[in-house]
């Protein structure tokens, strides 16, 4: 799979994905472990606290009203101070904070009764503290419990034990995690790598296949994997694109063939005429006649080349429309006036239905060209004594222009093709009417460039109606971009 080698290692998608997996994995594992650690710590301390509560309860139960005799705490101390794992240290203070009794182990611990604990005691609340005594390595847990008898604060018991085993448990837990985390990370990144490779492998296939498709073999397609997932969708999209490319390549090839044919014919005729003219000596009038024909043919050729240039520019959206508000009604009237003489020559009645003021956004020259093409066609294809009607209507959004004639009509089958380039309805008949079949293509392009529509309704030998819609000008949408 050469597509993988091309990209730099750190830019490869699978590497990136894996790194992302690892990072995510590491972060979530750290968060979970940290949380567990804190929970465990809290639980262990709570356990210790409960243990101290129990002992405090025991002591307070046996404590007499008046602590003259030190027998009771001494006996208690004998019971608890010698414990191997959790030796209990305690002292008993009176309501004022004066020490009444202190266990032997307690003497080595520097631990002052602070204001806060005292204040809590007066309110009847316990105070839990973690004590680091100077000179002692281990931390201690102490709980200060006030004892009330007959509504009076009689004693304050401070009792505690060291946290050695809590620390030990926590450090074991910590080292377990530190040992496990790298293993989990390695396994996770391996899994991530495999997943990333699996997910991306079809992309390599798609890339390789797509690269192999050139203008030579546009008929080929990428075979979908039949999984129906996003990548199949991607394959479908690419196939659709290739199909559109293929169609446009084919259209272009046909267009080039048609265009070269249409260009060759008049050039051939021009050359032939010149050759015949030169083949023997002739009168100046004959030369003149020949040259005039030459110019006329040249003009036709030039017209066609201009049309072709316009169309090819429109394909690549190079034609700039100079879009301004245009009085469509006046524009159509002017063109009708222009063509009235042609219609009269053929005894065709060219009428405009009464029309109201209509303003569209458009390029005036292109719109003139559009309606010139349509009306000129109508006159060409309508026999003598015929009729052409032009109507302009509008609704709230669109202006609608209908150019109807009583001409030869267009068969249903041909109606779909007349907008194609170089399409001529009846090749033999249109020679005499001139034109090479680009007029309607240009008309269609102009309409589409104006965000309008063009269509035709026709019946053979009855006539045709071309219907053009163009968006009306609304003073507020000056931002119109064709």
């Amino acid at each position, binding site marked *: 799979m050469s597509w993988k080698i091309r990209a730099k290692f750190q830019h490869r998608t699978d590497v990136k994905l894996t790194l992302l997996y690892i990072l995510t994995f590491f972060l979530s594992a750290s968060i979970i472990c940290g949380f567990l650690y804190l929970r465990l710590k809290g639980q262990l301390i709570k356990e210790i606290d409960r243990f101290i509560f129990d002992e405090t309860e025991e002591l307070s139960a046996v404590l007499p009203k008046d602590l003259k005799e030190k027998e009771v705490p001494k006996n208690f101390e004998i019971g608890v101070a010698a414990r191997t794992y959790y030796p209990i240290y305690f002292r008993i203070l009176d309501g004022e904070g004066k020490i009444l009794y202190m266990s032997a182990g307690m003497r080595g611990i520097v631990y002052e009764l602070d204001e806060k604990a005292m204040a809590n005691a007066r309110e009847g609340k316990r105070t839990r503290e973690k004590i680091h005594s100077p000179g002692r390595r281990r931390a201690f847990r102490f709980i200060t419990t006030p004892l009330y008898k007959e509504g009076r604060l009689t004693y304050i018991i401070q009792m505690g034990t060291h946290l050695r085993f809590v620390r030990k448990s926590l450090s074991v837990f910590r080292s377990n995690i530190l040992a496990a985390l790298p293993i989990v990370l390695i396994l996770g990144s391996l899994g991530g790598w495999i997943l990333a490779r699996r997910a991306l492998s079809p992309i390599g296939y798609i890339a390789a296949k797509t690269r192999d498709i050139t203008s030579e073999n546009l008929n080929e397609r990428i075979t979908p994997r039949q999984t129906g997932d996003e990548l199949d969708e991607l394959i479908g999209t690419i196939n659709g694109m290739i199909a559109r490319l293929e169609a446009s390549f084919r259209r272009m090839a046909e267009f080039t063939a048609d265009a070269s044919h249409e260009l060759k014919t008049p050039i051939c005729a021009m050359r032939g005429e010149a050759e015949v003219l030169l083949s023997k000596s002739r009168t100046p009038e004959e030369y003149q006649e020949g040259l*005039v024909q030459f*110019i006329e043919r040249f003009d036709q050729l030039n017209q066609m080349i201009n049309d072709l240039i316009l169309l090819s520019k429109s394909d690549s959206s190079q034609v*700039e429309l100079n879009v301004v508000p245009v009085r469509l009604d006046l524009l159509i009237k002017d063109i009708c006036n222009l063509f009235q003489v042609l219609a009269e020559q053929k005894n065709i009645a060219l009428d405009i239905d009464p029309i109201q003021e209509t303003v569209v956004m458009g390029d005036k020259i292109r719109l003139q060209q559009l309606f*010139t093409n349509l009306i000129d066609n109508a006159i060409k294809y309508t026999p003598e004594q015929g009729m052409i009607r032009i109507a302009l209507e509008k609704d709230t959004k669109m202006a609608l222009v209908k150019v109807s004639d009583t001409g030869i009509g267009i068969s249903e089958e041909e109606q779909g093709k007349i907008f194609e380039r170089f399409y001529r309805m009846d090749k033999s008949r249109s020679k005499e009417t001139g034109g090479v079949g680009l007029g309607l293509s240009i008309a269609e392009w102009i309409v589409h460039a104006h965000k309008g529509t063009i269509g035709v309704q026709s019946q053979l030998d009855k006539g045709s109606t071309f219907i053009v819609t163009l968006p009306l000008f609304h003073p507020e949408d000056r931002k119109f971009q064709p």
Partner: protein
Amino acid sequence: MRILLVEDDKGIVRFVKKGLLENAFSVDAALDGEEGLRSALHMKYDLIVLDILLPKMDGREVLKKIRSMEIQTPVIFLTAKDSESDIIKGLNLGADDYLTKPFSFNELLARIHALLRRGKTVASVSRLQVADLVLEVDGHRVFRGERKIELTPKEYALLELFMRHPGQIITRTMIAEKVFDLHFDTATNVIDVHVSRLRNKINRNSEPKLLHTVKGVGYVLED
């Protein structure tokens, strides 16, 4: 009348020079922009024909420099690109007219004549006359000798165009642009029909025949 032609295509230079010489102009040709600019700055010309795509210096650049030196010689642009923005840009720079390639020589000649005349015609002529054909500009009336000729507004505009340029060839393109305000090439013969109707009206029962066809080119009003 002296004309400077700045154009790099030798074929075009050849026929334009030949044609203009035959029409009693004297012509200097420059083959690139820098040479053209030099000539324009050192010699006094009545008109400059300037191509846009030129080697060494763009035609627009040449025009800009000429105008910045306060030389107001009329300039006709030649352009192969018929995109509107090009034309508008050229006119904004101070060109007086433009022609798109391929152009007809007579079209160029007609425009040269029109530009050279522009400064000279008295702004308001109330009466135009060719032979016994009279056009009264104020009253919008046309007479051939004693006979009053009824014209449609478009025919009147068409006749006025001819009457203002007697003896000059008026091309179809000029008619389309000036009379019908159509700025694209049409393959139709509608212009010819308009002219022939006008011709019928002014020549009916009258001698000499005044409006003549110049084959392959256009029309001319003369006796």
